[in-house]
């Protein structure tokens, strides 16, 4: 009998903890093209994170440095020599700013995603479990938030937090809070839907019958089972957070070059250069955005496919362990669609 288990296959809890961690367990399950996608994503993401951590070592200059012992940097110098990716119109070293920019990006991701996960998961659990008027109100609010363009929220936040001045903390918080506000409904909806499904599962009823309290049921029985999809939303939202930050910077609501390096801001400043044939000021920060978002999206999409036994390719004797090729293309398309 090929009965499908009502609950999705969880990683075997008896394996060592290391093998059960989200990405690692997915890597072990993957095969063929799916593994290729996951590895590509992991490599890109890994480079991104390492660069952020080691930025002080990698970057030859500071993000706001325009001169060194030899005097001021030349402006709009083509790549080569001391400035391997050239310099901008303000005399900043492009390579250093791209490297330092990873730190800003990662801070925004961490602040935004951590805040939205905490709030979204708690609201989702409570709303789905108790239902009633609380649930209805929260769903309406979540729907209303969906209607806000995240950029609008970000602009308002930027003004509220820093009065429009763009400091490092202010800029990061503005971007992070706006992203949080927009992302909470996503986590909320996913967790709420799972909670409503799990609420009807016999094991929850079985806990009710033995007299478990609501808090106990929510924390012990529903929470662990409802949060399986979080790694997926996390990676997808991380890439969206970067895009929002870049868009904010591009519009001029980002962070001043003296406070932190920010790719979107650099892109904005590079606009004027394009007409005069100066490509290096725009291409490198742009590439950094594209590759980071692509890396995170690839990881997210791969996890999504690997979580679903129907989409997951398998090793087999003499068989094709194929993954569906359109997925990679689709991931790229989606990443593209999220840009402005």
């Amino acid at each position, binding site marked *: *009998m*090929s*009965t499908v*288990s*009502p*609950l999705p*296959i*969880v990683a075997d*809890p*008896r394996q060592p903890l290391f093998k059960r961690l989200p990405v690692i367990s997915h890597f072990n*399950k993957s095969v063929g093209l799916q593994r290729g996608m996951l590895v590509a994503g992991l490599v890109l993401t890994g480079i991104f994170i390492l660069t952020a951590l080691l930025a002080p070592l990698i970057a030859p200059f500071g993000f706001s440095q325009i001169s060194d012992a030899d005097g001021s940097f030349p402006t709009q110098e083509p790549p080569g020599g001391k400035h391997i990716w050239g310099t901008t119109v303000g005399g900043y070293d492009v390579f250093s700013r791209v490297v330092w920019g990873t730190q800003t990006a990662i801070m925004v991701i961490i602040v935004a995603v951590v805040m939205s996960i905490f709030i979204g998961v708690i609201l989702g659990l409570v709303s789905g479990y108790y239902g009633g008027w609380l649930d209805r109100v929260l769903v309406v609010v979540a729907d209303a938030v969906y209607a806000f363009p995240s950029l609008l929220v970000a602009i308002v936040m930027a003004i509220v937090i820093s009065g429009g001045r763009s400091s490092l903390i202010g800029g990061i918080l503005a971007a992070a809070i706006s992203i949080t506000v927009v992302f909470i409904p996503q986590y909320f909806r996913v967790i709420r839907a799972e909670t409503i499904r799990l609420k009807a*599962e*016999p*094991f929850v*009823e*079985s*806990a*009710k*019958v*033995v*007299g*478990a*309290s609501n808090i*106990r049921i929510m924390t*012990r*029985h529903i929470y*662990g*089972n409802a949060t399986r999809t979080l790694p997926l939303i996390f990676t997808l939202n991380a890439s969206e957070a970067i895009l929002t930050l870049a868009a904010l910077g591009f519009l001029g609501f980002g962070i001043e070059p003296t406070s932190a390096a920010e790719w979107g801001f650099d892109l904005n400043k590079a606009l004027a250069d394009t007409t005069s044939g100066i490509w290096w000021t725009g291409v490198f920060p742009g590439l950094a955005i594209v590759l980071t978002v692509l890396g995170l999206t690839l990881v997210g999409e791969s996890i999504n496919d690997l979580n679903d*036994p129907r989409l997951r390719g*398998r*090793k*087999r*004797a*003499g*068989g094709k362990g194929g993954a569906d090729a359109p997925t990679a293309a689709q991931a790229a398309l989606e990443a593209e669609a999220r840009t402005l």
Partner: protein
Amino acid sequence: MTINIDPIKDDAGNSGPVLDIDHLKVTFATDGGDVHAVKDVSLQVNQGEVVAIVGESGSGKTVTAKTILGLLPETATSSGAVLINGNNVISVSAARLREIRGKDVAMVFQEPSTALNPVFTVGWQIAEGLRAHAGMGEDGHRISRREAKLLAIDALRRVGIPDPETRVNYYPHQFSGGQKQRVVIAAALALNPGLIVADEPTTALDVTVQAEILQLLRDLRDIYGTSIVLITHNMGVVADLADRVVVMYQGDVVEEAPSRVLFAQPKQEYTQKLLAAVPHLGRNSASEGMKERAHQHGKVLVEAKDLTIEYPGRLGSPGFKAVDRVSFTLSEGEVFGLVGESGSGKTTIGRAIAGLNRTTGGSLKVLDYEMLNLKERTFKPHRKDIGFVFQDPAASFNPHLTIGDCVAEPLIIHGNPTPAQARQRVRELLESVQLPASYAGRYPHELSGGQRQRASLARALILNPKLLIADEPTSALDVSVQAKVLELFKEIQQEFGFAALFISHDLAVVDILSHWVGVLYKGRLVEQGLGRVVMNAPQHDYTRRLIASLPVPDPEEQARRREENRALLTT
């Protein structure tokens, strides 16, 4: 009718078997390595013959059935030969396979409500198969919409749907479960296939409906000479319908024999054990030898008086009465069996006693607590005296907690044991349900269905409850496992002495355990009495029909019963 459907296919006439499976092997690639679902199966089906493939879960019977239609998922690799009218299903092209499906072999699925698409009329769905094969017919012309509809009406008439001219335009939700299964069979019959593969065709249906569908399948064989491959785990169904039986176990054929021979003299040990485990109505009754209701002077634990439970209807429409003025009592130490078909309200009553459903009328006293206007806060202290065993052991455990944690949970909620005390108590309980104490460290998915149901029993009993509610505790289990769990249940009930409400749709199972049996029909308690008396001398018409519909696992006896009860079943 201008379209002539031959009662019997001429070309399949006397040219050997309709289906010939030769050394079939099917292997699945899974996360845990290769699984050999079917190891080496050879069998033949002749024209006009019903061959039953029986086996427990994991025996490979469904995989074998799916191979016949080429419906295996991509992860499967198969070798050997499955010949249908000379075509090897395993090796033919996808286009040829489509031609074979429907024309030469058709399938009847287990769950009729999911086998039909809810957004199309049944006529359209039956005609779909016809149109898919149009142009390939003998005269080569495309079947028009009108002709297809006429054929669909004819197919519906053949499966006994009344007023097929009107019903052909109905949507699936307008039919009852049994009629839906008739429609699925009509769709399978539309192209007059020589062979029908029926995968658990009656498992999702009530016994009274099951009897009708079995009669229909028998008519197909007798009137149209259709061969049927019947996949089932229900030995009663096999005894009722099959000419020949193939017993499968873990991917291999264990035994193959004509139905009468197999049931009378099973040769293999596995078959003997399997047949011995099948509950047989009227044998091994718990109320054997009882003259009057046992424990009737004991303290009354559950008392229902005109209990009514109504589910609210949609705006403007009246509510649905799931339980309608039911009165009964359950005393200390007594096992009360509640039987009924789906929609009879048996589960609702069980859930109401456990406080999972609200009652809407009458009175229900559980341990002297009035359940009408139940307040969770005041009822909670009583919960430690009520145990509950759920139907599906796979779903009633939290997959993230170990068995030990799950079993200990009631203890932790209602008491304040030290971890060592809790572990000790869990060990005791696991031992009394005959599970090794080391299983406490395992996760639910690492246990088999029967083991999980034992653990579930341990969880329900850890606080020594006065009352246990068991809602279809064995219906998700294989027969051999069911037999063991029932035996264990009986032993433990005698040892612990709790009162139990045993809810089941299976009369034979209820009779094995219960002293006192109540029969529910559409929310009303139509009959109650000693189990032995209810089974042997039913008073109410519905009980009679229910007992007559239940096939017994003995072809001779079943054939006799069928004749006797013909009048009762057709009404």
